[in-house]
């Protein structure tokens, strides 16, 4: 019997009691699955810890459900609704577009057209198997094609088009390159001659097809799954036009020079129209007056440099007319659009936390996570789960694609069956650590798809330990063990509810809250400045700029800029988010280094071993010495579920030049890292020998503490591994002791311990 598999996702990241979460399940080789709701307590199976802990919840929805395989209509396209059927041409037609193919040799691709492969009907401009421009017509029985004799060169802008006269069957297919010193991979010195005009009489006529007019895809259908997109295109498409009559190539050329208006096209899509000061939507607008607008699916990337990019501007807001490029990728997925299998309305009184729908069928099981936050604060402590950062890593496959991955990570990857399977068919899309098929960095990531690694127990193949969500569950387990009252909320709740933080005395972060929206940072900063207390329990936090569109909290944008420890870098001129019109990249390069908020900021990463902290002189000052009450000796944290130490993986440093508040106390520091711990790239001006761990003083992990106004305070551990040390030795250890000291102090209102010791004299223990 074939192996059973089950997986799924929820429609929302986080819900409140009274709200409904839709659980969408797909299963293969089975028609029934048992669903239960569980509360997740601990997610790291390392033998030095308590193992996997979940707590089934009695709910009205627990039970067996019929399940079936749900498909994903993968890949970007622009779909034109066209209710009046104006694009449903069956006679003469002409079309042209500005196109930038990135994988011309991948196989047949449709650039634009209305073609149904299943019906063998319609018309489309595309690229044939061997990378030549092609025009296809289908008459319902057979197709005919005209193919350009000149191959398309990847990463080059073309004006490409076709003119087709139905009465004679005569088709003229043409393209010419538009090359300036900036807009493509190659400059004008590469002696390519791209100009082509070819004529041929076509045998088949155009028959109407039932699929929609699309950019970057044709329609296909299969019995098991119905209609889906096929012949997907990789590359950029800028402006385009369509005529319901044969128009000479010379006239179509008006598309690139801007004088098309007199020709009265059926559609003239100007991709630069509709750019707002706060972002760009998914609509491609028709300026011909016929209103033939289309909508992008799986969020094609906009704000891309266009055919006419002059290289003068690096921001689409300054020169939108040069940013008409829309990038399409055949492996993009931002919403699987599955049917709901189970809907659970969270009962009032359900405690907040990390939850999962546990789906079981035969030997197969999956935990589909979601979060429940309280309607109003029920405790002084808020655990802020860094869901932005979970999304950034969703379905990451670094070790399979990046040759230097093992050098970065210092060991051979540790694969599991699920990951090996997913690598074979990455049908649920990629993470912002991966590249799309054509090599462009993935800048969108979504919650609305099965995600392998936002799961309890999942161990990152790259790191060899847990990463993000399953690690952060160790904090939940620790709070549970020590009986703290706490609420759980997520980055997504912070975005939905601006007042969220103010209801809590202390906010605890996850282990790696790396991705932040401007608003999230603002709220956290406001919270601290107003007297809130932050326990920053991670490393490499508050680092990358992300943005969401209003009403679409499942879909996050990241553009990795010219600095930072990054898996890819946006192309020149493409650093500005389409979602929010702000500059992407690291916050440090937008004058907001993490040190300004937390006292520490990213300084190094390494994945071979973790280390203990050593107390620094500051920690003996009475204003902070209370943090180490009950901790014996200078060294602590020499254990942990993450490579044997509490300090490591990705770590932070105190740096006055980067905005660490001057009164910040350096409580402890961890040193002695291997050469696998390299200094971060944003610190490097000239690269030179001596920037690796054994020779670089910046390669360390700093633990800091500073007070803010109104009894506010920030305690930062400066290490991702910190949380993984908490569950060791039955949750009773010196890392746990430090945590308890700080947390116990932070949940008490009023003056913080040690606050009176504001002089150097006699203040030392």
């Amino acid at each position, binding site marked *: 019997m074939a192996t059973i598999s089950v997986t799924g996702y929820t429609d929302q990241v986080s819900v409140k009691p009274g709200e409904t979460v839709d659980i969408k399940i797909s299963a293969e080789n089975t028609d029934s699955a048992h669903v239960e709701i569980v509360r997740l307590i601990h997610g790291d*199976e*390392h*033998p030095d810890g308590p193992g996997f802990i979940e707590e089934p919840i009695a709910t009205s929805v627990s039970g067996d459900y019929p399940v079936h395989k749900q498909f994903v209509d993968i890949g970007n396209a622009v779909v034109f609704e066209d209710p009046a059927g104006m694009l449903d041409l069956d006679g003469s037609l002409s079309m042209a577009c500005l196109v930038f193919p990135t994988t011309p040799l991948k196989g047949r691709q449709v650039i634009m057209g209305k073609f149904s492969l299943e019906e063998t009907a319609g018309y489309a401009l595309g690229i044939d198997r*061997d990378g*030549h421009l092609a025009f296809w017509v289908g008459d319902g029985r057979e197709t*005919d094609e*005209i193919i*350009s*004799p*000149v*191959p398309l*060169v990847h990463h080059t802008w073309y004006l490409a088009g076709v003119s087709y006269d139905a009465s004679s069957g005569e088709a*003229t297919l043409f393209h010419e390159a538009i090359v300036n010193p900036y807009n493509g991979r190659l400059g004008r010195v*590469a*002696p*390519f*001659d791209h*100009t*082509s*005009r*070819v*004529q*041929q*009489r076509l*045998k088949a006529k155009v028959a109407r097809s039932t699929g929609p007019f699309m950019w970057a895809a044709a329609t296909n259908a299969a019995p098991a799954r119905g209609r889906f997109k096929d012949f997907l295109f990789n590359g950029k498409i800028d402006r385009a036009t369509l005529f319901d009559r044969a128009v000479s190539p010379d006239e179509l050329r008006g598309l690139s020079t801007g004088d098309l208006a007199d020709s009265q096209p059926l559609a003239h899509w100007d991709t630069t129209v509709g750019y707002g000061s706060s972002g760009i939507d998914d609509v491609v607008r028709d300026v011909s007056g016929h209103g033939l607008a289309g909508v992008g699916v799986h969020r094609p990337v906009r704000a891309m440099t266009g055919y006419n990019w002059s290289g003068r501007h690096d921001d689409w807001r300054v020169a939108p007319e040069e940013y008409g490029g829309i990038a399409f990728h055949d492996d993009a997925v931002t919403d699987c659009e599955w049917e709901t299998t189970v809907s659970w309305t969270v009962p009032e009184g359900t405690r907040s936390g990390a939850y999962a729908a546990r789906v079981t069928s035969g030997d197969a099981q999956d935990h589909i996570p979601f979060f429940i936050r309280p309607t109003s604060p029920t405790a002084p402590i808020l655990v802020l789960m860094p869901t932005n950062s979970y999304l950034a890593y969703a379905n990451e496959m670094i*070790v*399979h*694609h*990046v*040759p*230097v991955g*093992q*050098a970065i990570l*210092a*060991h*051979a*990857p*540790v*694969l*599991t*069956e699920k990951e*090996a*399977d997913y*690598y*074979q*068919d*990455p049908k649920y899309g990629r993470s912002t650590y991966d590249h799309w*098929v054509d090599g462009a960095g993935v800048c969108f990531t979504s919650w609305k798809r099965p995600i392998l690694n936002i799961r309890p127990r999942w*161990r990152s*193949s790259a790191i*060899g330990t847990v990463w993000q969500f399953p690690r952060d569950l160790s904090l939940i387990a620790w709070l549970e063990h020590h009986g703290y009252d706490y609420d759980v909320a997520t980055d997504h709740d912070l975005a939905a509810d601006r007042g969220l933080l103010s209801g809590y005395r202390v906010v605890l972060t996850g282990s790696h809250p790396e991705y932040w929206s401007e608003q999230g940072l603002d709220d956290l900063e406001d919270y601290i400045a107003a007297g809130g207390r932050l326990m920053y329990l991670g490393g490499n936090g508050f680092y990358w700029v992300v943005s969401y569109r209003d009403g679409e909290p499942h879909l996050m944008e990241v553009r990795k800029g010219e600095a930072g420890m990054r898996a890819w870098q946006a192309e020149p001129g493409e650093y500005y988010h389409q979602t929010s019109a702000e500059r992407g990249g690291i916050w440090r390069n937008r004058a907001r280094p993490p040190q300004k908020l937390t006292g520490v900021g990213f300084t190094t990463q390494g994945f*071979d*071993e973790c280390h203990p902290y050593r107390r620094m002189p500051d920690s003996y000052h009475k204003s902070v010495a209370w943090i180490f009450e009950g901790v014996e000796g200078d060294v602590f944290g020499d254990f942990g579920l993450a*490579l044997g130490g509490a300090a490591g993986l990705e770590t932070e440093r105190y740096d006055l030049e980067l905005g660490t508040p001057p009164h910040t106390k350096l409580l402890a520091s961890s040193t002695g890292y*291997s*050469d*696998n711990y390299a200094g971060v790239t944003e610190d490097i001006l000239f690269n030179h020998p001596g920037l690796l*761990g*054994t020779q670089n003083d910046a390669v360390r992990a700093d633990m800091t503490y500073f007070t803010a106004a109104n009894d506010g305070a920030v305690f930062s551990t400066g290490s991702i591994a910190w949380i993984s040390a908490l569950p060791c030795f039955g949750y009773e250890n010196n890392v746990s002791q430090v945590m308890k000291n700080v947390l116990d102090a932070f949940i008490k209102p009023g003056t913080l311990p040690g606050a009176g010791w504001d002089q150097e004299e006699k203040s030392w223990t």
Partner: protein
Amino acid sequence: MSSEKRLVGRRLLRPAWPVRPERTFRRWRYPFTKRPVLNLTGKFNPITLKREMVLTDKKPMFWLVGLSALLLLPVASGTERVLTLFGIACIYAAINVMWTLIIGTAGLQSFATLATVGVGSYGAGYLSVTYGIAWPLMLIVGLLLGALMGFVISLPARRLDGLYYALLTLGLSEFMRNFVTQSDALGGKFNGALFGVAKIVPTLGTPRLTQTVVFITTFVLLLLALAVFRAVNGGRIGLMLKTAATSKEDESFASAIGIDFQRARLWVFMIASGALGFIGAFYSATVGGTSLQIFSLDLLLLMLAMIVIGGLGRAEGAVIGTVIVVFITQWFVDWGPWRIVVVGVLALLSVLYTRNGLFGLKAQLREIRTRRQTLHRAATTGRYAEFLPQEAPEIGDKSVIAKRVFERDLRGRLRSWISPDLIAEHERKPLGQHSDHLERMLNYFRKAPIPDKYAVYCEEPFARYRVVALSGLPGVPPRVVDDKVYDSLDAAYHAVFLRRVNDLRAS
């Protein structure tokens, strides 16, 4: 043609099609088809980036030239002898094309070809002589008889394989011959000769004119046969059979993906047999009779020689082979039995020295050339660095070559550092800071390209690990390298290390 002189070794390169970017390039098609007259594909010359037009499929052109020559040469020569000779060649060629369909496309070793032709020939002839039916009806009768015959002899093909089936079908010819000899109605009295059959081409003004028209009708017959061949072999049924073509494994594969190749095979056999019957009837109606010669073993072997010389499985091979053999046997009549010896020697040579007759020669010569090129490049290896010299032109990204040169030197250094101490150091502590030599070695290993790069596979966390190698190809899972299982990650990391050290040693 290009005006520039382009050189390849000592000979001029094949002329390139002109490229005129300023002009509209017109693609012509054969009337009523989607086939291009000249299937020109453009490409950029990788050496110069200049545009080139290359004729990708020259076959239609060769067919056009070849068939035109076959039609025009005899007609132009005008002698009855030449016309007769080529008329015979056309009929034999038509038979051989159909036989090719049976042997090549259907993959059935049937020798009942001439028996089927004979059935059509005698059947239609008999009806014409006895009942006076006209030639168009004769052709239809031939077709039906052939198809019936095909059906009957296809039955044992389901059970009999290869040699046994060949023997059976061979026996069938002999049976037919005996049958005719003993049948009075079929001219047994006249040693099997049947005459007085209705003719397609009546006697015209001059014998030469008559012969010319007869020749043209045989040429049309050949065209028809080629059309049938194209429709069947190039059509859906032919595609299905190609999947099951070469071996028993292919047959199983074809069945597994839902291709009923047995059925497809029988269909091809029936179609080809029908056509053979048709040709038989055509033969009777062209010659005005038929004779036992048609069932003779020597003719069958001669036809086999034609196919072997031309190249098995290809229509062009069947036609050219037939023309050559017919020419030898009919033109050099005064050589007597030596003609047969010459044909035999030709067949022997093509079996011994060619892979697939005349039409397999091109691929064969190309391979020989590539081999010689490789040898030549290999002889100059000293000038190249760390890669097989014949590879260099195929590496589009020249930085790969530079990288290999660099790594050759690096590997040399690393290899000299391999020692039991170094391996012991890694075993003690696979992760973390190591001695300089070990660190450098590990960095080299870890930076290797993804294909065949080692990784650890976790079967059970903290209990069962294996060593695998990544594919580097999307869609291809990692491959397990051996059956060893490790109980800790450190042990697995070290196993990976040992493998890499071994690979470094061997490199």
